């Protein structure tokens, strides 16, 4: 039986990818950020997950205004790193897990979440930067990935509560897959940041830390946070944190926090990182 054993939360700032791709991770600016992922790299090398269910958002890359799916699950055999205007990142192709992805799609839709099923999609920094943070620069990613895109670009994004409940449905779906697989779920994006307008540069460390404090044991409280609070307190792009709630929902009631890291800034953004192990 497949099972979701652990979840990771991590920001996915494009410039982090650039720092990795240009071997700049040990500079004065970047070292404190990357140091916080040393533990994770060792841990994940031991865990050896078979599949990452990677919750992220597309940033006007694969999805323009032609189509704006609220939730989209990638069911393809593989996904190419996208050209976001400077040429694609020099990272390996992302290998999909189509059997599990199609299974999850069917199960989750039957649990009343209407997913868009995507079979052709390039994946942008939202997906590839977290992979680089956890796995560095391998020739081939040592894991299969199911990209799961959440719309956080066009308002309204799905609510935190909806994302949290979706995570629970994803857990049910994975539990009912026959193959013996170690699956992790990652929630990416955030934490506080605003990229637009005269209020750009907003960071709310106190709020972010309270979010991290409650993720393991008080997810219900986090699921109740309204859109407008994310916007007001954490900046217009802080809303990405709803994707962490998909991850948390998929871990079951009891989780243990294994590792945490928080650093300001990466470019315009507060970087948060957490590892939660499912105890169910």
């Amino acid at each position, binding site marked *: 039986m497949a099972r979701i054993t652990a979840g990771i939360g991590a920001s996915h700032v*494009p*410039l982090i990818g650039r720092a990795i791709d240009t071997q700049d991770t040990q500079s004065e600016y970047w070292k404190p950020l990357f140091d916080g992922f040393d533990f994770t790299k060792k841990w994940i090398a031991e865990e050896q997950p078979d599949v990452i269910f990677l919750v992220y958002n597309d*940033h*006007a*890359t694969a999805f*323009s*205004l*032609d189509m704006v799916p609220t939730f989209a699950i990638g069911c393809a055999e593989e996904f190419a790193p996208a*050209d*976001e*205007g*400077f040429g694609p990142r020099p990272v390996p192709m992302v290998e999909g897990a189509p059997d599990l992805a199609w299974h999850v799609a069917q199960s989750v839709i039957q649990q009343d979440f209407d997913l868009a099923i995507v079979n052709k999609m390039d994946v942008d920094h939202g997906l590839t930067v977290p992979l680089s943070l956890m796995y560095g620069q391998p020739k081939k990613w040592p894991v299969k990935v199911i990209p799961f895109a959440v719309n956080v*670009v*066009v*308002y*309204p994004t799905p609510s935190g509560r909806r994302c949290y409940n979706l995570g629970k449905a994803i857990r049910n779906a994975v539990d009912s897959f026959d193959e013996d697989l170690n699956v992790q779920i990652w929630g990416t994006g955030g934490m*506080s940041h*605003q*990229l*637009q*307008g*005269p*209020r*750009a*540069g*907003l*960071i*709310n*460390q106190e*709020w972010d830390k309270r979010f991290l404090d409650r993720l393991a044991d008080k997810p219900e409280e986090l699921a109740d946070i*309204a*859109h*407008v609070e994310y*916007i*007001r*307190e*954490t900046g*217009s792009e802080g809303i990405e944190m709803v994707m962490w709630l998909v991850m948390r929902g998929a871990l079951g009631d009891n989780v243990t926090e294994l590792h945490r890291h928080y650093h*300001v*800034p990466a*470019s*315009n953004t*507060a970087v948060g990182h957490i590892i939660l192990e499912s105890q169910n």
Partner: protein
Amino acid sequence: MALEKPYKDVPGTIIFDSEMARKGYHLNQFCMSLMKAENRVRFKADEHAYLSEWPVSEEQRQAVLDRNYNAMLALGGNIYFLAKIFSSDGKSFQYAAALMTGMSEEDYKAMMVSGGRSPDGNRYIRENK
């Protein structure tokens, strides 16, 4: 009945909701076209001519030519789409962010390194005079 928009009183922030997405549709799709290298080349060669191929409003066109990002946001541009314009110009997100705040890039960077803009005094329009 009108939709509730509780985010309208957040200072210095335009939420890309249905109204804005409707207003900015062509502007954002123009931005999207700059993802293709050949379009970037044509745009850079003659911005007026390239923009005239898109049914954007006169105001939107002028805002693009002026690289007035705050104006583009107010006219329905979304920052992830507008990023295609400043990327075509070889500029970073931090450059654009500084520009939109009216700070020099140096001052903006220094603000970020020292912890970013505080939310205090920046939560409601009424407290941000």
